[in-house]
């Protein structure tokens, strides 16, 4: 086969090219020709098509995402903002933390184990690329109904894949989410979060500067996996196009990645590189064009130097391959020997594939011929930008009008008992340890708090007691009812979860999972959600440091519930002061902080008991969230409470049951108002705390000082969950609750 060189491209301007098959639109193809002043070579076409795909270029989301920057709250904490591989925040004492969440939805549907595994692998490399040691992972997951056959197929594989890869890397899994909903059937969401730690001076960026510096590719060999994955995978739905476009899935090699991590950390420690980039989507195309674009602007690559797993690969395929466990570094020639020595120590393959120059062009040669000659910015950063039309869906008003107010509520004691048990055992609220016990949460020895606590928390390293806490949240039913408020509620909840462990919320990451951007209704959801989130971040003073957009999550015409997963990172000076939610003793007073309103639309009760979704979500109250957080943080620091749990899905009833089960002791709630509202409303900005008689007065005063309503509602002790109220009185044995809470997932997934 002849090589399509740049000379040939100039000589044969009218040659037919498969731009459409590669996912490019006619005007995009034309623009490439304008940029180059000729038709692209097939290698250039491959590069542009992957880099201009939705997944890499954010072409549909860019105009909206700008708000995260435009509305960013003033903060000194942000060391590296959006646009890099991951944002970096200052956590004090010279330490910096970087964190990010990314999706691997479609690959996990096709091959659950490997899809999820490589999702972890990819996000870990992103964090490593910032110069950080990865220290923990989390996995927000969404599945179809728990008893659906396809959920039975994908869930065990996805969980095993996340565990298989993360455990083998030696990264503790400190939290996540598992949510079941019809809309994810055929389109599960696998989001993966990683957090890393470094010293300020160790931050690295993806830039190729310094003429004469070397470009080194290291890690796994390049194979034929995931070729075209980026454009085809992330830009098309499967059902519409049939299996022909199904990508070949990559197989992860966590051992190679583990060794690569250690090798990189040793390289970082010696300060011998100028820039670094991981190879993820779009492989070498992405890494070389981004490095060059961020640096001096020129780079020459000899593609024949790339070590191959499969000798038959064409240059286009090598450029597009998404083989896992590879990195690309820029270094001065003088440091090459030392670099190679470290790689050899770890048995990591490394080879020089190019040099940095000041040509302003990215040039690539293959068998002595030039096959790429492009301005790197046009590939990496100046892709197409779309202002996609958006419009509120016609059905939205009807959805909002259909409130949960008219649904039948429990009245008798028996019905209350049944409702508690239904919710406690419902797949969304049931114990998740069938899943989470497959994840190592202890490795590295710094885990202060992990599943099932409100937020995961790790000590930054051995030499300090300082720690970071992270929670990811999203109630997509709320976002469906009102995407603007729903996104704010996701932030509220994550923020509250972090504060409930005693950590101070500092920064935000997100993974925006939506349907097709070509559908104006979806685009409306997207734009509303982004605006809502940006506004709320500004109000709460927590900047978005980075994130990820995943579009085309739909089966046929039906989009998933809009699912903007929000991750909040907080800092705590001394992890030993963190709060847990298990009731540690009998005789503690239970105090509910915050105001409870009658808010049931989109609630777990409406979902689990009535399969109902309609109305308006709970009203966010960001100022109240902030004050609640102040109370919780101070209470933790000063030892003013003995346990704390935020209220969210399933309301007070669920929260107190969880506190009982975790502490292995009962509790009695004395409700003064409407029992149903008290137990199952999902009003925001609330938490329940347990205090000793010595702590009680101080906590109440603290709450008052912050204007946070505080109501004494019960006591811990006994072997049952007891509710007394004007309407109804009932009691459920802890053993029964435990049985119902823990039986659900094993019954569904243990075969």
């Amino acid at each position: 086969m002849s090589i399509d060189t740049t000379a040939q491209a100039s000589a044969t301007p009218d040659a037919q090219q498969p731009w459409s098959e590669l996912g490019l639109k006619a005007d995009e193809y034309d623009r490439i020709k304008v940029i180059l002043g000729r038709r692209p070579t097939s290698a250039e076409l491959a590069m542009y098509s992957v880099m201009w795909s939705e997944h890499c270029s954010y072409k549909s989301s860019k105009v909206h995402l700008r708000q995260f920057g435009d509305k960013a709250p003033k903060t000194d904490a942000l060391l590296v903002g959006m646009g890099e591989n991951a944002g970096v925040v200052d956590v004090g004492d010279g330490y910096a933390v970087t964190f990010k969440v990314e999706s691997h939805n479609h690959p996990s549907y096709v091959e659950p184990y490997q899809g999820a595994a490589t999702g972890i692998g990819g996000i870990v490399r992103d964090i490593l690329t910032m110069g950080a040691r990865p220290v923990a992972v989390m996995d927000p997951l969404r599945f179809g109904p728990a008893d659906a056959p396809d959920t039975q197929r994908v869930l065990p594989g996805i969980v095993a894949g996340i565990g298989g890869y993360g455990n083998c890397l030696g990264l503790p899994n400190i939290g996540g989410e598992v949510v079941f909903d019809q809309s994810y059937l055929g389109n599960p969401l696998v989001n993966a979060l990683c957090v890393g730690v470094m010293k300020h001076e160790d931050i690295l960026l993806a830039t190729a500067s310094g003429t004469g510096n070397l470009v080194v590719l290291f890690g796994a060999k390049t194979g034929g996996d995931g070729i075209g994955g980026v454009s085809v995978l992330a830009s098309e739905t499967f059902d519409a196009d049939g299996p022909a476009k199904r990508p070949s899935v990559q197989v992860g090699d966590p051992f190679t990645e583990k060794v690569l991590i250690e090798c990189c950390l040793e390289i970082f420690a010696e300060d011998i590189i100028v820039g670094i980039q991981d190879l993820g989507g779009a492989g070498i195309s992405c890494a070389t064009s981004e490095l060059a674009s961020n640096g001096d602007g020129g780079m020459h690559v000899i593609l024949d130097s790339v070590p191959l797993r499969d000798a038959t690969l064409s240059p286009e395929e090598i450029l597009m391959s998404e083989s896992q466990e590879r990195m690309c570094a820029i270094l001065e020639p003088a440091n090459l020997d030392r670099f190679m020595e470290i790689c050899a120590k770890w048995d990591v393959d490394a080879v020089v594939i190019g040099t940095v120059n000041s040509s302003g062009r990215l040039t690539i040669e293959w068998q002595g011929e030039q096959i790429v000659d492009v301005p790197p910015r046009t590939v990496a950063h100046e892709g197409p930008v779309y202002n996609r039309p958006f419009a509120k869906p016609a059905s939205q008003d009807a959805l909002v009008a259909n409130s949960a107010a008219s649904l039948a509520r429990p009245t008798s004691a028996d019905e209350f008992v049944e409702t508690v048990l239904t919710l406690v055992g419902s797949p969304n609220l049931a114990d998740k340890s069938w899943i989470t016990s497959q994840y190592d949460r202890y490795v590295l020895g710094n885990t202060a708090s992990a599943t099932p606590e409100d937020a995961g928390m790790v000590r930054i390293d051995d030499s300090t007691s300082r720690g970071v806490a992270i929670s990811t949240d999203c109630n997509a039913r709320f976002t469906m009812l009102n995407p603007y408020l729903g996104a704010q509620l996701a932030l509220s909840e994550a923020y509250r979860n972090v504060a409930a462990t005693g950590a101070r919320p500092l920064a935000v990451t997100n993974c925006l999972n939506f349907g097709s951007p070509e559908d104006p209704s979806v685009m409306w959801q997207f734009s509303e959600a982004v605006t809502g989130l940006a506004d709320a971040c500004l109000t709460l003073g927590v900047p978005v440091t980075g994130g990820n957009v995943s579009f085309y999550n739909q089966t046929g015409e039906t989009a998933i519930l809009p699912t903007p997963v929000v991750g909040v990172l907080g800092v705590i000076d001394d992890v030993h002061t963190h709060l847990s939610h298990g009731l540690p003793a009998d005789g503690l007073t239970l105090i509910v902080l915050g105001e409870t309103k009658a808010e049931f639309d989109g609630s777990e009760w409406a979902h689990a008991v009535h399969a109902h979704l309609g109305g308006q979500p709970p009203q966010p109250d960001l100022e109240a969230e902030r004050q609640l957080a102040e109370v919780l943080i101070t209470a933790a620091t000063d030892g003013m409470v003995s346990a704390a749990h935020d209220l969210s899905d399933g309301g007070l009833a669920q929260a107190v049951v969880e506190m009982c089960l975790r502490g292995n002791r009962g509790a009695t709630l004395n409700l003064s108002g409407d029992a149903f509202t008290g137990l199952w409303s999902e009003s925001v900005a609330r938490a329940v705390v347990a205090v000793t008689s010595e702590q009680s007065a101080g906590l109440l005063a603290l709450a008052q000082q912050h204007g946070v309503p505080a109501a004494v509602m019960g006591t811990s002790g006994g072997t049952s969950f007891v509710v007394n109220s004007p309407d109804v009185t009932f009691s459920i044995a802890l053993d029964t609750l435990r049985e119902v809470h823990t039986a659900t997932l094993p019954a569904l997934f243990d075969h």
Partner: protein
Amino acid sequence: MARVVVDVMLKSEILDPQGKAVERAADRLGYSTITSVRQGKRFELQIDGPVDDAALASIRELAESLLANTVIEDFTVRVEDN
């Protein structure tokens, strides 16, 4: 009673980290004539009744749906003499 063997191997273009690990170990141990190793799964199925075409077709169906994920793996089915 007959025995049917289903061998499941990763497709040749797919990375085989397990095989690679064995290959490297064999090399370190000095088995230099081994140029490549691939590792897969072997299933031995005991079948009640005759292994006729229908039985084999049904086993092939099982292999396709349960024993292998044909997105990344190939399989072969054969009857083994006892």
